[in-house]
């Protein structure tokens, strides 16, 4: 028997794959290729040319800005005065923080006078010293009411007077008895 394969129907004996086969195959291929590495489209960023003029202008503005920022409100007296209010307020619990300079003076004088009367004659050295100091400081305060230094001195003196006033005469006697006289005060007297 002579067989000529050229005359045969050129079919393969295997059945056709299902309709979904190629779809599934394509999905698998896509998931393993494009799906695995999604395409990232890069955005083009704008490039600004740096001109010397613009750089110089920017530098000047920057330096000016920094100088203005650092130099602003840099007056030492003002800043000290601001600080003093906070520091003094610690000691003046029962009084308003800011007081009129003239009121302070008046108050100071009256307290000082009462103190001198109370303390006479036993603490006369102290009273006289404080009184003389108060007088000097009062004069100065009149001239320079805004001066921080004089204000604090006056306040501290006033505080001392107040503390002394809080003591009863008997307590003061005890203190006087137990305390030694200040040699430096004597020197100045």
């Amino acid at each position, binding site marked *: *028997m002579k*067989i000529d*394969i050229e005359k045969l129907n*050129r079919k393969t*004996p*295997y059945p056709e794959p299902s309709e979904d086969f*190629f779809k599934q*195959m394509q999905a698998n291929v896509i998931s393993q*290729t*494009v799906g695995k590495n999604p395409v990232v489209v890069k955005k083009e960023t704008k490039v600004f040319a740096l001109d010397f003029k613009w750089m110089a202008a920017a530098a000047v503005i920057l330096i000016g800005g920094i100088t203005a920022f650092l130099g602003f409100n840099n007056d030492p007296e003002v800043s000290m005065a601001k600080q003093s209010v906070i520091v003094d307020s610690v000691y003046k619990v029962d009084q308003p923080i800011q007081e009129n300079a003239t009121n302070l003076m008046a108050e100071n004088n009256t307290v000082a006078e009462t103190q001198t009367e109370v303390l006479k004659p036993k603490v006369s050295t102290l009273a006289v010293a404080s009184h003389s100091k108060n007088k000097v400081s009062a004069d100065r305060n009149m001239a320079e009411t805004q001066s921080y230094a004089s204000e604090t001195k006056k306040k501290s003196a006033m505080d001392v007077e107040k503390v002394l006033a809080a003591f009863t005469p008997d307590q003061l006697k005890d203190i006087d008895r137990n305390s030694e006289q200040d040699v430096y005060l004597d020197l100045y007297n």
Partner: protein
Amino acid sequence: MKLKDEEIVNLLTAPQTVEKGLRAMMDAYQSRLYWHIRRLIVDHDGAQDVLQDTFIKAYQNIHQFKSDSKLYTWLYRIATNEALQALNKMNRMKKTDEDAEYHMQNLVADNAGQDAEEIQVFLQKAIQTLPEKQKLVFNMRYYDDLPYEEISKILDMSVGTCKTNYHYAKDKVESYIKDNYSQEF
């Protein structure tokens, strides 16, 4: 609408259209490549794996494709290499070449459709007895009707060698069918 090879390659090489290009390439060649692979591997699932790998390899190496050759020639080459690799893996399990040949013939019988003609089953069994190169040339020439020039490019051999291989293969196949088909009937 089927796109030309050049359009498919252009789509594949542009990052924004790569998926479109991949789908166009698969739509154009999936059927032809499937049957080429199936005739070599025989098993459907094995053929599916090889076909997938073929398209994945094509996607990964599209930059190596030279536009002076045809896309389907390039794809056939990839598919053939992948199929041969898969066959070698399968045949490594077998002790001898006869065992491997016997295994493939059984596979043909198992995978043949119920409505398949006996002579076609015998033809496939006969092809499984051929050496590798003759098998490849015979399949591409007989079933895919590829010109010898294309076959020579796919298999990297001369046109004359391809012709010789085909004629040897044809004689062997006819002789196998004559011996075995006439015995059964």
